[in-house]
């Protein structure tokens, strides 16, 4: 719902392909697949394979106590932010952070209840993990560890959470509440998420994945933009007709940006169903929809799905000369009926 242009001037990811943007772009453009056997020891998993981030060791990146006791989503977010944050630029009172999530760290929440049911007394939870029990833990930890003391917001937006974060962050800039905002999304692979996704039948790709993608947003002018965020908007399929809502939402995005469907060079969907993809192809054309490789190789990254789609678009800047100055549409849908879209104009022209 944002018509005021913000620009992306930096980004980073931690993905099953590795740490940092380069490994991610290499993996996506190379068609790599990160799925590997998963093993949670005595804990039973519904999956034989998953796309997990290996070698995550926040204590190696960040000093400070308590890092090891944080939930996995918070650790992934901290690792991602550490690759992006520039002290002074992205820190202090005029810097904000907006982080998208779907379920927070549902593993921590379920662990707390499990402890309550099993402990000698029902409130004897592990005190070291209490801070991870609310959804805002990852964003707050980012603020605490890096000194980002402007707006700090956690947005629950399902698969489109990264687009909700972009929209919310753009509005913070437009309202003058911050000079720079890092916006993104994070998702963890844990037994709790694996089982809940399994029971909800909400997995959209062959394997589950995890990771985090973050973007620095600011008003145009200060630095060479990697992309302009031309428009972000969402809607709800009240009649549950998601394909129709995808088309309506994409039209809204294009109208707001003042861009015709024929001028969409590439459309990237964050794990849509075949029917939704077909509907989108009807609007922007099959060429646009198939122009850029998908991120299937990192699996279904849940709350981070749309953020990774944005990362894919940004990853083309400098890699594919023909991408410079092009319009890229990112779409995400959720089983609860929410649909979001964003239009980016890539820099490098």
């Amino acid at each position, binding site marked *: 719902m944002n018509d005021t242009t913000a620009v992306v001037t930096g980004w980073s990811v931690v993905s099953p392909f590795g740490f940092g943007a380069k490994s991610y772009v290499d993996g996506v453009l190379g068609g790599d697949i990160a799925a590997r056997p998963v093993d949670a020891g005595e804990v*039973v998993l*519904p999956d034989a394979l998953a796309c997990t981030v290996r070698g995550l060791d926040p204590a190696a990146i960040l000093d400070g106590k308590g890092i090891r006791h944080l939930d996995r989503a918070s650790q992934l977010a901290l690792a991602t932010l550490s690759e992006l944050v520039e002290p002074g630029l992205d820190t202090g*009172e005029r810097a904000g*952070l907006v982080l998208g999530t*779907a*379920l927070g760290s549902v593993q921590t*929440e*379920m662990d707390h*209840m*499990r402890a*309550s*049911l099993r402990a000698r007394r*029902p*409130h004897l939870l592990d*005190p070291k993990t*209490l*801070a991870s*029990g*609310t*959804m*805002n*833990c990852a*964003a*707050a*930890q980012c*603020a*605490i560890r*890096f000194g980002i*003391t*402007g707006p*700090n917001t*956690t*947005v*629950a*937006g*399902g698969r489109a*959470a990264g687009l*909700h974060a972009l929209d*919310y962050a753009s*509005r913070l800039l*437009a*309202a*003058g*509440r911050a000079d720079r905002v890092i916006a993104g999304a994070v998702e963890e692979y844990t037994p709790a998420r694996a*089982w*809940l996704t*399994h*029971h*909800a*039948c909400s997995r959209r790709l062959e394997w589950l994945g995890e990771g985090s993608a973050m973007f620095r947003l600011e008003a145009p002018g200060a630095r060479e933009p990697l992309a302009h965020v031309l428009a972000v908007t*969402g*809607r*709800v399929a*009240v009649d549950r007709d998601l394909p129709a*809502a995808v088309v309506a939402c994409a039209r*809204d995005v294009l109208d707001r940006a003042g861009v015709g469907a024929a001028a969409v060079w590439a459309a990237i969907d964050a794990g849509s169903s075949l029917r939704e993809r077909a509907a989108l192809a009807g609007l922007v054309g099959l060429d646009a929809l198939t122009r850029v490789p998908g991120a299937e190789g990192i699996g279904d990254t849940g709350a981070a799905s749309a953020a990774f789609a944005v990362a894919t678009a940004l990853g083309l800047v400098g890699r594919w000369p023909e991408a410079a100055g092009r319009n890229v549409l990112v779409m995400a849908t959720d*089983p*609860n*009926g*929410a649909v979001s879209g964003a239009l980016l104009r890539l820099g490098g022209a």
Partner: protein
Amino acid sequence: MTAQVAGRRVVVTGMGAVSGIGVGLREFAAALRAGRSAAAPATSFDTTGFPSDVVCEVRGFAAGDWIRTLDPARLGRAAQFATAAARMAVQDAGLEPEALARRRGLVTIGTTNGESQDVDELTSADVRHGPEHMRPELARRIPPQTIATSIARELGLSDVDARVIGTACSAGNYAIGEGLDAIRLGLADYVLCGGSDAVSRKTFAAFHRLGLVDPDACRPFDAERRGIITGEGAGVLLLESAEHAAARGARVHAEVLGYGLNCDGEHPVAPSRASVARCMRLALDDAGVKPREVGFISAHGTGTKLNDVTECEAIRDVYDGRPPPVVSLKSMLGHTMGAASALAAIGCVLALTGEFIPPTINHRQTDPDCGVDCVPNVARAARVDVVQNNGFAFGGDNAVVVLGRYAGRDR
């Protein structure tokens, strides 16, 4: 400091409240004025073995009285509360949902724990029978965003962004602030914003583990205060531009004058006096209001030792040692988490229009380290023009909203 956002003036034209002291706006207002308490032994979960059993639950709530399009049985408790409160707010605004559906909107709802009762039940199934025995319908509805999409689906609103703010116990104020900016900037014609949460065993256990639960009553600013009572409920406000409200001849409850948000960036649970003070200043600056214009402060006022003294010190810093009355609705409602600052904002508006200051109940003796006039136990008749509503959260996430009497002209 924050540059004040130029743009449309934003007014509250509809409100809905689901709370432990009253379901429905009129009932909620009467209970605030009477100083009722929602505290009672828990019925939603088993408290055997806990150091206490008192919570502030919503009782006598029949979801079907408000939720018509959707099947209430298929919604979690937080989504039921929020959807009912949204329906109330639209009715209170004198609007037909069909009229709203033709306009561009935003549905933004704050929550701390989302469908925490469902998550607890899923975990119980896992512990007792194994993870393959979790109920699929619960797994499908626990993503917190579903609270916002349920409101949109119930009211038939398709042209909306529907999202949930997960910024813990100040999330209600975050949502109101987001709505304020969306209308000021012309990005939405109307906003349904607020907060919702349900009590749960897990939340009760976590606050007990932190040693932050008072065993019998929440006594903010009292010398013998011992902590919070966990609570539940939802508050939803309908915001629109003053221009839009005037064009349709709507009754205006109050104006949202401004808000501020920031992050301590210091400690996961202990609040920072300087940062909390900075957030209040951001909000007052954004509202274009001087501290001496504020008639009372609706405090975060959890009733914990640390929050109340830190908050009162910060208030004295901002108000140059002479703060107006500082009250805590949590004394009546319990700590309703993501709903807390939304219900408190509604309470502030009702106080503006009803010309009273809600009391801080359960009060015996004010802690000299707090040193505020908390309007002990009995509501006070007063005509105030501006109210400040504080919301703070674990993680150091602060949001403060400033509301004012709407006179229909520039202040």
